[in-house]
């Protein structure tokens, strides 16, 4: 291993943290072993996905092949792409293909996740600004309360929530999935508050002298400066909502209200021996976010790392 002193000669920008040596890495056998190890580990991490993808285009009889093979037989144009259209037909349960089953669930998931994300960003940033910059009566008390609720498991509040939603006649609508997460996100408030505290007070004071109101300061100065934590929080919120299983499972009954995870689970229950169809369904639910993730991975991963260091 090269010593840390050597790394000082590398440029400060390219230098990886702890001085681990891009330029030198190819001469050092220990680092080659690490590369091989990580490559193998990455392949193992990716294998279940590859299995899902390739299995989704296998003919049904191929799945009982021993030993199992990753790739379907034949060339890609011989693969059984019709598993997807079959899965669409089966999940639509008689309705038009575009207004039921997967496309409908896709739309449900998409619009719920989008609304919740936008709403959460608005309400969390407002509360974060108040906690960070406005001295109002009871601020410390409310803040402690917000922090303390992060400990409460969702399973404890879901029973009363279910009863409350029943009284409101909100069960089996999308409202219980939209309204509570928009109006309450302790993590989001806490995360953004940490960032607002990092913005120099002088900026705000200068704006106050110029006669800007609180509202204007918030919308025209604070919000633009919160862009990167808001993007991170937005991504977490969207991901969490898109993939959420627990709340939709409790609150939704009719299949035309279902979100993607529920439809996939229902499909699994209804066609339990149709393994290739199930893989097609799983692919349909996983692929959009995987593609987004591959393109936006830097923002997502760095946002998560940032949120961790702020909390």
């Amino acid at each position, binding site marked *: 291993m090269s*010593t840390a*002193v050597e*790394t000082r000669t590398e440029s400060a920008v390219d230098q*990886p943290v702890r*001085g*681990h040596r*891009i330029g030198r*890495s190819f001469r050092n056998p220990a680092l080659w072993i*690490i590369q091989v190890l*990580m*490559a193998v*580990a*990455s392949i193992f991490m990716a294998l*279940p996905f590859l*299995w*899902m993808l390739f*299995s989704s285009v296998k003919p049904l009889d191929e799945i*009982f092949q021993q030993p*199992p093979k990753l790739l379907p037989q034949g060339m890609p144009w011989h693969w059984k792409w019709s598993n997807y259209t079959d899965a669409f037909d089966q999940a639509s349960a008689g309705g038009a293909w575009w207004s039921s089953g997967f496309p409908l669930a896709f739309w449900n998931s998409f619009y719920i996740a989008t609304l919740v994300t936008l709403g959460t960003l*608005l309400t*969390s940033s*407002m*509360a974060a600004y*108040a906690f960070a910059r406005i*001295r*109002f009566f009871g601020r410390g008390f*409310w803040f402690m309360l917000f922090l303390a609720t992060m400990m409460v*498991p969702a*399973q*404890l*509040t*879901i*029973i*009363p929530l*279910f*009863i*409350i939603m029943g009284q409101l006649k909100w069960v089996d609508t999308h409202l219980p999935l939209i*309204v509570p997460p928009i109006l*309450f996100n302790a993590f989001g408030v806490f995360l953004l508050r940490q960032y607002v505290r990092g913005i120099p007070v002088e900026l705000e004071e*200068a704006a106050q002298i110029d006669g800007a109101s609180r509202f204007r300061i918030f919308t025209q100065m604070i919000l633009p400066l919160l862009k990167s934590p808001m993007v991170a929080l937005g991504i977490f919120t969207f991901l969490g909502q*898109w*993939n959420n*299983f627990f709340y939709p499972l*409790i609150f939704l009954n009719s299949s035309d209200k279902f979100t993607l*995870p529920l439809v*996939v689970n229902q499909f*699994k229950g209804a066609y339990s021996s149709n*393994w290739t169809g*199930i*893989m097609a*369904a799983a692919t349909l639910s*996983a692929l959009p*976010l*995987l593609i987004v*993730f*591959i393109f936006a*991975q830097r923002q997502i991963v760095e946002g*998560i*790392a940032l949120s961790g*260091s702020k909390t």
Partner: protein
Amino acid sequence: MTERPQADGEVVGVQPAAADAVTETLAVANKAKADLKLQQRVEQTAGETHRRALRKRRMRDNLHGYAFMAPQLVGLLAFMIGPLVFAIILAFMKWDGFGNRTFIGFGNFETVFQNEQYRKSALNTLWFTALQVPSLMVSAFLFALLLQRTGPMKNVYRTAFFAPQVTATVAVSVVWLWLLNPEISPLTAGLRKLGWAAPPDWLNDPTFVIPAVVLVSVWQGLGYQVVMFMAGLENVPSSMYEAASIDGASEVQKMFRITLPLISPTILFLSITSIIGSFQVFDYIYVFFDTTAPAYGRTIVYEIVQVAFREFNFGVGAALALLLFIALLLLTGLQLIAQKKWVFYTE
């Protein structure tokens, strides 16, 4: 802002509050400094007019504060505090959610503690946590250490590790339902090739159900922890390692004397959050088994969902959930107490 500015010059301390043209301009500049410290000093030194202005400012701050807080405060009360109080009351009631409700004291808790299956499910949950949290954290830490040294390939590996994290648990579970099915599983075939003559029928073998769920959840949870550990490792100043190298410290010494102490806050954060998460394991089991999970594969949250939303016995469900909450509070509290012994804060 109608407040009469208190001319508390930042350099010279308290100036007379006379309002001639010169001090007026000074005051305008100083108005900008009206933060907490100034307010407190104002309170001490100002005259009656300032006190009145201060009161006005406080009123306005209260108004603004609560206006900005309003949506989240409504949510906090309606969707967190309210339900929380309601849940605690429910735990002492017999109620199916529609008809009669009666207070039965600790009756629900008696039911819970006398139920053989709940005890088994609690043990399953503990067993899951005991297996999952250490294997997840240790492997994530090791992978983070290795990943740091991979230079330009780092992003590629990181993508592979993090991808399961952005995938719906349901999709992950159905894929693993296949991978854990011995008749068609490439995993079983692979293990046979490696010399394990009779790999288990994971989900139908009482010994292997929980380890199988651990395997899936570690696979899915690894990416997040790797990223967190990498962020922690990047905050360790490289000058420390350089100094240690000069002093002739070995890699092992660097690990135990520098790296681990300096990332101990990350370790604490991850151990608290992952214990909380592992106590709530549910999605995998529900997708694997639907409503008919075998006794050896059920967890506490699975029981809560079954008793509350299949049998509509809200009281027992709330009692179980309350016990889960208390267990989490105790565990987190213990970790926070124990941190004084081993967590090292640089600031």
